[in-house]
């Protein structure tokens, strides 16, 4: 192929900004302060097992909620007339035009002990409830921020499902539920898997959402890594080791996920 050279800029980019840093993380993870090889950093990650489990658990819940909420919306969206689809998609995307920090900050003022929600509840004699600094608030933040990343891949797969295929299912005896599970879900599987990836991966490694909405008690892996590089706990070797373990976990989960995806649509 004579056009190979056009990919050169990206190849350079990939080497300098992806391959080399990855290698550096690996080197950091397996060395100690004095530069010698060690597996102590990796072993130390074990101390934080509870944080790993919490991160996985909260992001699994957030991903599941996103899927359940996004699936029907995406389907309805994909069946609308073309010009209305564009408008509705814009509305879905609208929050993403606002700065991520600002959006999360807005939730702080909504959920705070003296926040808008508690204030309103107080008017009808309820509360104040503890809303902020809970794991629920963290999940809410994840769902709110990452929901569009579930809707978009689902929608883009569903819009390609021909109306006549759905009619054919109905013609061959399927009621609404049978049509959903025998035809629509199998055909939207690639969208489901990529939607899950797009939500789960950023959710499991977030640190802003947990910091702003979770308080000190809902530390996630992302916070832990941040602390090793920028915080008081300064220990880049441990930070690199945690990052490496997180990467392996994500890789394993994605590989398992891809088993459910059709062969020609593997994601990673």
């Amino acid at each position: 192929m004579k056009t190979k050279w056009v990919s050169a800029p990206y190849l350079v980019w990939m080497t300098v900004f992806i391959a080399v840093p990855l290698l550096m993380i690996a080197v950091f993870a397996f060395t100690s302060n004095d530069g010698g090889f060690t597996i102590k950093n990796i072993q130390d990650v074990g101390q934080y097992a509870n944080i790993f489990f919490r991160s996985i658990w909260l992001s699994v819940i957030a991903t599941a909620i996103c899927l359940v909420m996004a699936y029907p919306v995406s389907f309805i969206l994909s069946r609308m007339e073309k010009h209305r689809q564009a408008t509705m998609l814009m509305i879905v995307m609208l929050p993403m035009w606002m700065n991520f920090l600002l959006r999360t900050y807005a939730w702080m003022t909504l959920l705070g002990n003296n926040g808008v929600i508690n204030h309103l509840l107080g008017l009808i004699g309820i509360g104040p409830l503890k809303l902020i600094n809970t794991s629920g608030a963290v999940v809410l933040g994840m769902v709110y921020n990452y929901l569009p990343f579930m809707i978009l891949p689902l929608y883009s797969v569903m819009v390609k499902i021909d109306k006549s295929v759905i009619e054919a299912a109905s013609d061959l005896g399927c009621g609404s539920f049978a049509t959903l599970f025998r035809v629509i879900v199998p055909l939207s599987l690639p969208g489901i898997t990529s939607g899950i990836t797009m939500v789960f991966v950023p959710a499991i490694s977030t640190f802003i959402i947990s910091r702003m909405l979770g308080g000190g008690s809902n530390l996630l892996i992302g916070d832990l890594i941040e602390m090793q590089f920028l915080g008081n706990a300064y220990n880049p070797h441990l930070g690199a080791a945690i990052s490496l373990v997180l990467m392996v976990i994500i890789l394993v989960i994605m590989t398992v996920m891809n088993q459910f995806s059709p062969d020609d649509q593997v994601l990673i």
Partner: protein
Amino acid sequence: MENIINLKDIEVVFEDGERILKKINLDIKDKEFVTFLGPSGCGKTTTLRIIGGFLEPTSGDVFFEGKRINGLPPYKRNVNTVFQRYALFPHLNVYENIAFGLKVKKLPDKEIVRRVGEMLELVNLKGFEKRSVSRLSGGQQQRVAIARALVNHPKVLLLDEPLGALDLKLRKEMQVELRKIQQALELTFIYVTHDQEEALTMSDTVVVMNNGNIQQIGSPTDIYNEPVNAFVADFIGESNIINGIMPEDCVAEFSGHRFECVDKGFAKNERVDVVIRPEDIKIIPPEKAKLTGIVESVVFKGVHYEMTVDGMEHKWIIHSTLHEPVGTMIGMDIAPFDIHIMKKSEE
């Protein structure tokens, strides 16, 4: 023969106010091969979708074996559809596609295997069970679509331009095969097409539609030989349609001459459409003819030549096994029974 489907005053008006079907009435006899024929936008597919249950008429009633079935969803109707672009399930293989309807109805496995096997044999797809439908040719996909519908043993099979995407040779083969299947299984087939030749070769009854109205219902021979109006005549095969008047019974006047014909019952000097089939015009020496013209073009069509002849007031289309060179003056002769007189249609 008994009627299996009756449509009573079916009207379909879309949201934008467009009237797709204008109060049509139609009876479909059991075990017949019925074809809805018409140009695109005439309402033929809409009529089929109403029978299939995919579209509710704005007003009017649909009867199936005497029972009103308005509002009954497709999956509760004893009809199956072969869709225009097949609409096979891309995530299932050939066997699973055909077995789909039976699995939904939770039939015993043995029964499913037997019936799918029968269908594979019927449509000549034995050995293709495990093949992904995306790796089949157009003709094979078509066969899967037919098998997938027929395996449910419907009383009526609806076919929406099923051969439209196939090449000519394959289309001809499938026409014959579909007709055979219909006769072997003794089913009612309702077939939608815009191809008049397809309609004439396959059908027991042809329903010619235009602009949301039924123009004519009849056997292929009736429709071809006795079209009720100029639209049908023109749509079913090429025709010369000329404005004329009827000075008296059995006399038609057009192109400045009087001709003997066999039609009567028109008002004196009523304005009519005169329809003459291109193959019914005989070429004779110009000095012996009332009608003359100059040959403008000659196209070889296999069995015959198609000529356009400029006859001053009308450009004639003539089909003939002989041909005259371009630019020659010819005479045209038409036998009285080949001159078809039709009332001017109101539209």
